[in-house]
């Protein structure tokens, strides 16, 4: 494939897919270890009402208010889950399911009630994203990577995903020790003077940041899949956290690259004309990786469990 075709049409979507996948997989490691994997699921559902409310307030489809709205919705949902759990003495899973379905229903209803037909805002878009449309029209080939004029025309989603990824990395780097301690031994972490509750909330907020930035570019399916599948597969590969994080990044990148390639070019190889959903295909590939890991990975059994 020539650079003239690849750079404008496929490079940026692929890059955005990879960066979004990594940004979600990194906090996903801790969510999976803390048995909070479904927080990612909940966040990605409540992002919809968040952006709808942001749209209704500002009246424009712009990135900044929507990201704020989505982040606000994530915060509201976390508070709501916690409040329902404590006030009603309800188990966390049910509180979570109750919260995110209600908020999602409210989002759908708001969307139907308001006149959003003129703008590109609908439930399908929120679910699938529009990875394929994030093309770089100013590019003419590999040499455009060094051309400042063409670089200015990069899709803005790329910048936001990069910022989110940097934010996630900075958070993990700064709070690595408290995060690890409070994940594996909460009471020891408390004895060491770490505010474990605040660490937990901070982790969820960072996950929300990654989810919102990724959601903006690639839709909510990838967000849920990348929060859970690469870290889960990585968990089966190793017993060391550092290695697990490394494996999860590798799996996230593999899923994004192969998912995008299969979606864009797979049907052509099979003799069909049209590409299929890249977001769905990336999620599918991550599932295949997880399935392979679950069958063959060296540390797939529980420690102490008899070999089956």
């Amino acid at each position, binding site marked *: 494939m020539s650079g003239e075709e690849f750079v404008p049409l496929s490079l940026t979507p692929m890059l955005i897919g990879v960066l979004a996948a990594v940004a979600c997989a990194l906090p996903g490691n801790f969510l999976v270890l803390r048995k909070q994997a*479904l927080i990612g699921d909940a966040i990605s559902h409540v992002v919809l009402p968040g952006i709808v409310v942001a749209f209704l307030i500002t009246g424009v489809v712009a990135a900044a208010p929507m990201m704020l709205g989505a982040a606000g919705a994530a915060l509201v949902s976390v508070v709501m889950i916690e409040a329902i759990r404590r*006030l009603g003495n309800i188990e966390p899973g*049910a509180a979570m*399911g109750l919260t995110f379905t*209600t908020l999602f229903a409210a989002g759908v*209803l708001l969307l139907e009630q308001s006149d959003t037909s003129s703008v590109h805002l609908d439930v399908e878009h929120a679910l699938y994203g529009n990875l394929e449309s994030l093309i770089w029209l100013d590019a003419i080939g590999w040499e455009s990577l060094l051309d400042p004029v063409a670089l200015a025309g990069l899709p803005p989603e790329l910048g936001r995903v990069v910022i989110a990824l940097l934010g996630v990395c900075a958070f993990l780097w700064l709070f690595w020790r408290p995060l690890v301690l409070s994940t594996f031994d909460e009471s020891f972490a408390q004895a060491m003077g770490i505010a474990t509750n605040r660490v937990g909330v901070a982790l969820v907020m960072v996950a929300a940041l990654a989810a919102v930035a990724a959601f903006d570019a690639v839709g909510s399916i990838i967000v849920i899949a990348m929060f859970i*599948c690469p870290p889960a597969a990585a968990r089966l590969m190793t017993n060391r956290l550092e290695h697990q994080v490394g494996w999860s990044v590798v799996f996230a990148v593999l899923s994004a690259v192969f998912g995008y390639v299969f979606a864009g070019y797979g049907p052509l190889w099979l003799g069909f004309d049209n590409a299929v959903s890249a977001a769905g295909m990336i999620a599918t590939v991550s599932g295949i990786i997880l399935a392979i890991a679950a069958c063959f990975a060296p540390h797939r059994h*529980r420690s102490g469990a008899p070999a*089956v």
Partner: protein
Amino acid sequence: MFWNALTLQLGYNATLVTIGATLLGIAAGVTGTFLYLRKRALVSDAISHATLPGVGIAFMLMVLLGGDGRALPGLLLGAAVSSWVGLLCVSWLTQRTRLSEDAAIGAVLSVFFGFGIVLLTVIQTMGAGRAAGLESFLLGATAGMLFNDALVIAGGGALTLVAVLILRRPMTLLAFDPEYAAARGINVGRMDLAIMALALAVTVIGLKIVGLILIVAMLIIPPVTARFWTERTDHMVMITGLCGGLAAWIGAGLSAVAPAMPTGPIIVLVSFGLFVASLLLAPNRGVLAVYLRHVRFQRRVHLRQGLLALAQGQPIYEAYTVRLLKQAGLAHADGVPTEAGRARAAKALRDEKRWELVRADQAFESAAALYDGLRDIETVLTGDQISEIDQRIGGPQGVAS
């Protein structure tokens, strides 16, 4: 107008939708009860998302075989098969690998859903226009509901209810004490799968009305609501059915009279409204009841501490205590006891001394276990026992010279 919708006088389609939704609400609530009691409410999320690839594959197969791709029974069959596969994946991942159940649920729901989306885009390119309507399984669409669709929902709902009726005892046992259930000879793994299969059945028949994302709410919210009102499983099942049916009935009615009100989300929001009302108002477990209980407890503690302080002639600095004593007519605003207050204070101090002896005496061990600082000693011991203790305390005596 709204009343007309509720009483089924708003035309053929609205009537079908209302009846279908109400039946679905009852079936979903009843099934969800056991899912909730087993603490696996979110498995329904994996089940519902995993229906999508089945819908896609069923559509493609039916088109390839030359039929109409949108025949509801075929699509529902496909949905049931693929979400069964998803369910098996969840339990396989949980049992055979070190992954915890939430990770397994999340992985299955996102991967199956993603694959379903891939299939939907394939279908879109297969035959122009014919796939229109498959997206409606995401959020449900009641506008074009046919009589046959309503029959499928009613029949499926009735079968589910019968199955719950048959399996209710082993399922209850499993929910509360899995080890005991296993010891009684119940195959725990299989019974778990049976609970899931019932949830799956409800999910599949609910796809048409509320769609796969919101059916989860109909399985989770009514049981959580009902849990506030009762401590008994059989009552809970009935209340859950009531809540689920009521929410669906009101929701379907609302969506029939108001334009641009999709049925699924409205049902979920009505259901949530019932939940909030129960959370606040339910007796015993409701927030209001808990708050009132707390206030009453606080009053008793303050009154008792105030009386003990009065009896020992100590000053009371706590404003709330003084206010309570004054309201009860036991003290003046400056904290000086009234005549009645002196009597009550003396009694409180005497009771305290009685308790001290009771707690020191092995013979009263069981009574002493009930001591919490607030309980009236008369409610624990008989009059004879109390007078026996009083003899040990003895009456007031002069100073021996």
